Each structure stands twice: as structure tokens, then as C-alpha cells.
């Protein structure tokens, strides 16, 4: 528990990180630093996107797998770290700012 906390804290404390979300494999948030409605929205949308991205990667090469997903938009960047495939993984989302002042959202899924 403590390790988990510590890791999460470390990531959250990174410069430019705006928020962190941890979800389970189904996309239900476990741990978050955002408000509930936003968290739920992010979790649902990103889970679908991650699923899609993962399936894309594996369709092209079944031996391959998705390791990281970054979505860079005008205002911020979302980083998604997926867990293991086959329903084992948890989801983690981070919202972070870039050094140029624009916020980055990073998500670990």
C-alpha cells in the first residue's frame, strides 16, 4: 500500500503533471486526483481508446503489444500507461503540464 502511494505521489509530483487517475482493467477509476465526474469521463474514454490502440497494434503483429500511449493536443498531453493485456492490468492516468506552460494530462491505463 505504501509503495503504491509512494509511486503515485512521485508521479503526481512531477513537474507539469496536472492530475493522475488509476483505473482497473474495466475502466473504473480506483484512485484519482480529479473530481469524480471528470475522472469517470476520462476513464471511460481513454479505456476505449487504449483498447482500440492495443487491438490495432496486435492486429498488425500479434506478437506485439501496446506499451505506452501519448495523446498530444493543443492544450495538454495525455499519457496512458496500459497494464498487461488480458484483463490483468490496472489503469493509470496522469494529467500533466508541458514545460511551455500548457497542461499535460498523462494517463496510465
Amino acid at each position, binding site marked *: *500500500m505504501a*509503495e*503504491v502511494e509512494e*509511486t*503515485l505521489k*512521485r*508521479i503526481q509530483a*512531477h*513537474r*507539469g*503533471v496536472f492530475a493522475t487517475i*488509476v483505473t*482497473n482493467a*474495466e475502466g*473504473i*477509476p*480506483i*484512485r484519482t486526483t480529479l473530481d*469524480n465526474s471528470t475522472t*469517470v469521463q476520462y*476513464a*471511460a474514454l481513454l479505456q476505449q481508446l487504449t483498447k482500440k490502440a492495443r487491438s490495432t497494434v496486435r492486429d498488425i503483429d500479434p506478437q506485439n503489444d501496446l*506499451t*505506452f500511449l*501519448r495523446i*498530444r493536443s*493543443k492544450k495538454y*498531453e495525455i*499519457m496512458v*500507461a496500459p*497494464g*498487461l493485456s488480458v484483463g*490483468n*492490468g*490496472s489503469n*493509470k492516468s*496522469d494529467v*500533466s503540464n*508541458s*514545460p*511551455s506552460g*500548457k497542461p*499535460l494530462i*498523462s494517463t*496510465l491505463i
Partner: protein
Amino acid sequence: MKTSAKKQKGKTKDKKSAKGKQTELGKKDEDLSMAAIGHPEIFPLVFTSKTQEIFNCRVNVDVTEENCFKLIKKEDIMQDLKSRAAISDFHPVKKVVLEYPGEELLVVFDANFQYGQNFYLVASEEAKQNLLEPPETAKEKEGEIEEEKEEDREETLEVPPYKPPVSKPWVSLGSEKEVEEESVKDTATKVKYMISRVRRKFGAPITFSDTNASHVKENYIECTSYQDKTFSNKILEKDMSVQMVPKVREACTQTKWTYPKNTSTQYFPRELSSEEKEESLTSEKLKDFLTSVHLSMEIALQQNEIMNAFFDDWKALAEDESSSGGKPDVSLKAYRSFTDPRYLKDRAIGCVCWHPTIYGIIAVSARERLPYEVQGNLSDKSLLQHSVILFWSFFDPINPQLILEYPEDIYCFQFNPRDPNIIAGGSINGQVVLWDISQHEEKLQHEQNDVDEMQMPAVNMPPLTQAQHSSTEPPLVRYCAISSIQYSHKKTVTDINWLPGHFEDSQTDAASENRAEICLQLLTCSPDCSVSFWDVPEAKLSEQLLSEKIKEKETLNMPLDISDILKELDFSWKPLIKINLCESDTSTEYGPIRISLKNLHYQYKTSEKMRPLNTLGAPAKESPYTEIGTSSSNNLKVLDNFSTNFFVGTEDGEIVYSDWKIDVNNDSAKQVCQKYTIHTEPINTLQRSPFFEDIILSVGGRNFAIWKEGITNGPILQSNCSAGRNTAGHWSLTRPGVFFIGRDDGNIEIWDLLKKTHEPSHFQSISKSTITFISPWTASAEKNFLAVSDDLGVLHVLKIFQTLSDPSENEHATILDYFEREIKYLKHCEKEFQEYQELQAKTELKRSWRHRGSKQV
């Protein structure tokens, strides 16, 4: 014999054609007697050779063509028949033979096969006779003739002798009646007509004429058809049949099948309860997952820190392109031009100010047009005619919107940033004047709404407008407060600035915060070597009083004179603080023309809400033009680091940098810190950059300079001495490295520090006479205007093109870099100079020592 011969021949024939015989037999059975041909007594037979031998009628032996008759006895035939039964040739005619009356039968050899067989039997005696007898007479005839003859002979043999007919009496059988009936007889005697004509008319020409037959009814007879009723039958009964046909019609319908469809779905997301969350948080899986994943996450975050992920290369490339590409020839486009023949005749424009809130309103102050050299002695001139500040609107280039009146010329004026309806002006006689145009504010704002309407709205005509002018004239606004002559400046008020209300200069000299945040303080300076701080609150009160009194006067319908107003005014308006600028030791006084202060938060009050400046240090594009530079420090409360330094540009061309913090008394002499003499002629512009709070542009005489506060060595940038005089200058409000310089030949120089620092990047001729004032204004992101006033009383409003108005991405940083470099260079130069001086001193010392040494020796 004949018969046997026949038989034989028939047999041979039989052999040849058995079938034929059979058919012949058949034929024979049916048509045995040749009755078809008409010879019933003739029976054709086929005689085989055996038969022919038996009866001695062998062909060509006994019987020939000529001798074709053979008589055969009936008994022989009978015998043959008995002996040979079926195979006898006479078998088919057995009956005939039995019936034959005679004893001998005639068999005739038919060489030509007349009757179809080679023999034939004659069945009757008569025929026999006929045949036998005539053939002897007519043997040369063959075929039918012979046959006929034989027949004839046969007949004649039996026919009795011919007797000629004997006529008998006719017996009528009724035929003559028929004949009679049928015969044609003339019933009536035939009528004979003889028509004759006169001979002379024979062959004569005939003239025909037309007559209508219907006219003369006797000429013709006609039988008109008529309906004969006897022949019309009325059908009383009619046989009719009706057939029913089903009428076929096609039709189709479409039913609306309403099926339930989801219009909206309400759902809520799944959430884990807190226990579940706790559980999953403590689970091993999560731990493992995090350990595996956090490294990559940190790498990603670090990457973002290293480089700016949001840097748009493409866009940056475009900007470089635009800045390095060719600029359009004309960077300033003439937008409007305002002049008034009545008020601005023979007058120059002294000061130009944009209305801070209302778009398109610009105010100019007129002053006497003077040759440049005499400008310093403005105060000597006493002008009795009224001087005006004209308000122009973009939408009405002919008529000024508003006129602020004052007996003396106004050298400079400013809108109150908090309340743009208060205008403070400094006149050439040293007094400070206040106007209140709040009654006209609506009208001014209306002007920008009704673009096409030029007439003054009569409803909004404030009571202040006098009865003197007609309705087409713009409203005249008298000043509402004026400073006391005694305490005003002795010379022209050359610079007037509103101060933000954050500090109050009290007697105790502490700069305290004015929580009211209203700009109620004025800073003026004048070439009488003094700088004054004025406080407005009392004046405001008096304004209200004044306006009330004036209203009263209006109701009495009495004309107002200046004396009335002056009576009402509180003449005790005097400055809070008056600072004399003079050096403490040398007691040289400085006549400041322009003053620049560093101030705190500067806010402009708009009609709706406060619009605070961006205090984060990013360039404020909409920062209104003021002659006081703004600082970007956002500490309102802490006033310890409030800077009380100021720059002063004097009429001798000196730049003085000093601190007005007074130690002891209000009117004590000031301590002057720095003094720079770069310009040779009076400074006409001293302005802080809207982007950098410590960069100041000073324009005067033949050159201009950029200074940085704190750098005491000298200006960062100093221009060459130009041919003409620089009469006006201003920083650009949108680009950090751009400023405008006005010349006395009517040209505007646009300096772009990014491009060239030794000469202007652009040169444009605006007017024919001296440029007196430049004032840029940013109405919106696209609309950047530059107001340029000249000596002829014309105000030109120019539109600044995008290239000049849009800063590039890193222009701010670049300009800052440039300044830094320059500062470094200056320092380096200073250092070098110092070293050089030291070196000089050293060499001097050495020399003096040497001299001394030499002297001593």
C-alpha cells in the same frame, strides 16, 4: 386357245409381278368388268404361259396383234377351272364364264394392254360379235378406235335397223306458257320524237350562262330525301347481352410501423465502492503493475520536460517566412484624416489622445503654430482667443463630436484612465484644467453605433451646451475645474499624467495604498523646473457643484460667462506636492518637459468592468497608451519596493534620472542622481516601453536614445544624428522592438530593432509639415491605428499593417536579448574606458615621477 394364251401370258405376267397380279386381282375383284371405262363386258385377264399352251393362245404364236381373237369353248374353260381350280387364270371370271350364255367365249389378245392385261375376255355375246366382226373391217385402227369399233360392232350387231323418225302431233305440256312469260314484248308503243333546229343556228357560237338551279325550281326536279316514317321501326324489344368484367384496380398502402426507438439513454458510470477501491489499492497486482509502469511514465514526463512538446515547427517556419519576406511598400495605410477649418485654422495640433474605451474617438488639442525655436517661450505668449480640444470620431470625419473649451492653449492632456469622462489638461499658462464629459459620453458612444447618422441627438443634448451654438455645431464643454493660478506652474504645463490611485502622497511622504483605486492624482511638470502632484477629489466635488450651478443658470436661461464659472470654482485647487528640480550643489535647475514615472498596477475602468492589465509579464497588447510606463510587479500591498525614481527630459536636452522621495519637507531641494546629455534640443518624448518596464525611449533634437533604468553608463541605443529633427516618438503598442519617430519634414520613421538598428526599417511621408505627435492605438487585434498630428492642424489616422503590428513568437525574447547584449557591450566599453583611464593615470604618474625624479636629480 385365246384364253389359254391369255392365261399363259397372265402367268408370265404373274411371275414378273406377283404383286401386280394381286393388285390386279383386287382390281379385278372390284373392277373386274372394266365398267369404269364403260365396257362392262370386258374382263382383262392375265394368261400364263401354261394357260396359253392349254388354250393355244400363245403370244406371238397363236395370237398376234393382228390376229388377236381367240374363241375358246366354254367347256374347255370349265374343265380348266376344275383341273386347276385356284391357279387357273379364269378363276376370277369363273362366274362370268358360268353365266355365259354362249358356247364359245372370246378372248382377245391385248397387245397394247388397253385394259391392263395381255388378254381380255369378252363376257357378252353381243360384244363378242361386235368385236369379231368389225375387226375384220377395221383392223388398221388400234387402241380405242378399235375398241370402240368393236363396241360399235358389238352394238350394231344387236341393234335393230334404223328407221327415220316420224313426226307426231305436238302435245303441249305447258311449256309454251313459260316461254311466253319469258319472252320480251313491247308493252307500249314506242314514241318517236323528232327534234329539229333552225339551220342557221347550226354551228353558231353558243353562249352559255349560269343559272342557279335552286332559283328556278322548274328547271330541275329533285327527290329530296325524307324520312319515311313507314320505314322507321321502333325497337321495342332488343336482344342484348351483358358481360360482367371485374374491374381490376391496383392499390397499395404503407403502414407506419411505429417501433420503439431509443431517443435518449440515461446512464451513470460504474463506480467502485470505497472498500473495493481500498482492496484493489492494496492488491499485489496493482503493486506489480505500478512497478512495471512507472518507469515508462517517468521517462515520458522527462521527455516532456526536456523538450517543448507543443512547439509547432510549421507555424514557426511560417512566421520566419513572413518576417523575412518582403514587406509591403506601404506599412501605414491612411485611414482617416481629420481637420477642422474653424477651430484648427492656422493652428497646430499639440497633443493627441485616444479615448480609452470608446472605439474610434480621438481627441486633439490645438495650439498656436510656432516655429520650433520659439517653442520654449510658450508661456510668454498670451492668447486671448479660445483654444479647444476637439473630439473626432471615425464615423464622422467632417464634424468634430465634442469641443472642450478653454481660454488658453492646452499643451497636453490626458483621459482619466479610471473614468474616461474626466480629462485633465495642462495649459500653456501653467494651469491645470479638468473637464467632465460624462453627459456626452452617451453621445460619443452613440456615434459609434449609428455610423451613418451625423446629426446630434437632440435628446442627449446636455444642459451644459450653450445657447450660443446651433444644433449642427458640436457641443461645447467648458472646463469644470481649474487650478489656482497662484499655485500652478509658472510656465507651460508640458506634461500631465494621471497617476494610479494606489499611492497617496501624504504629508508624511509615505506612499500608501489608495484602496479606492480611482485615478485621482495628477502629475504635472513644467519648464519652470517643477514637478507637481495634484489631488483631484476636492476638484471633483467642485465639479459637481459647478454642474449643478450651471444647471441652475440654464434654467434661468442666462448666458454663462467665464466669470461666473470662475466665481463658482474652488480656486483653492493646488498641488499636493511640488518638487523643484535643481541640483543641490550647483543649483542648476532643470526645466522638465517630459516626465516618466514607474508606477504600480494601472487599471482602466471601462463601462462594464475593470480591465486589469496582465501582470504576469506577458506583453499586454491592449495596454492603453500613457506617458507613464507601467511596471509589471503585482504586489499591491507591499509598497516598500515602490519605485520613486523617475526620468525627466528637460528643455535643454538632458535626461535626468532621479528619486523624488523626500526626506524632510515637501519643497526641499531634490537630489538628482543621474544626468545624461545626449540630445541637444528639448526632449519631446520620454516614454517607457509598454513591454519592458525599464526601457525608455527618449526623442529630442536630432537623435533619439533608448535607455535602461539602472544602467547608468549611457543609452543602450543611440541613433545617429539625423538630418532633420525628430519631433515626436512613440513605442509600438504591439511589437516590442518597434517604435515610431516623427520628423519635422512630415515623415514617419518606423524603426524595427529586429531588422536594423542603424537606420529606420521604413520611411513614410505623412504630411508636409512637422509631425507634432504620434499616438498608436490598438482597437482590436486586427485594427492597429497610428494617429499622427502635424503642424497644419491635420490629424492623420493610419492603419498599421499586420506585419508591423503582429509580433513574432520570440520577438520579446529577442529584443530582450538585444538589450542585454547592448548593455554588456556598454559595460564592456565602460570597463575598457576605465582601464584606459587607469592606464592613462598610471602613465601620467610614472611620467610625473620621472619628471620629479629628473627634477630632483
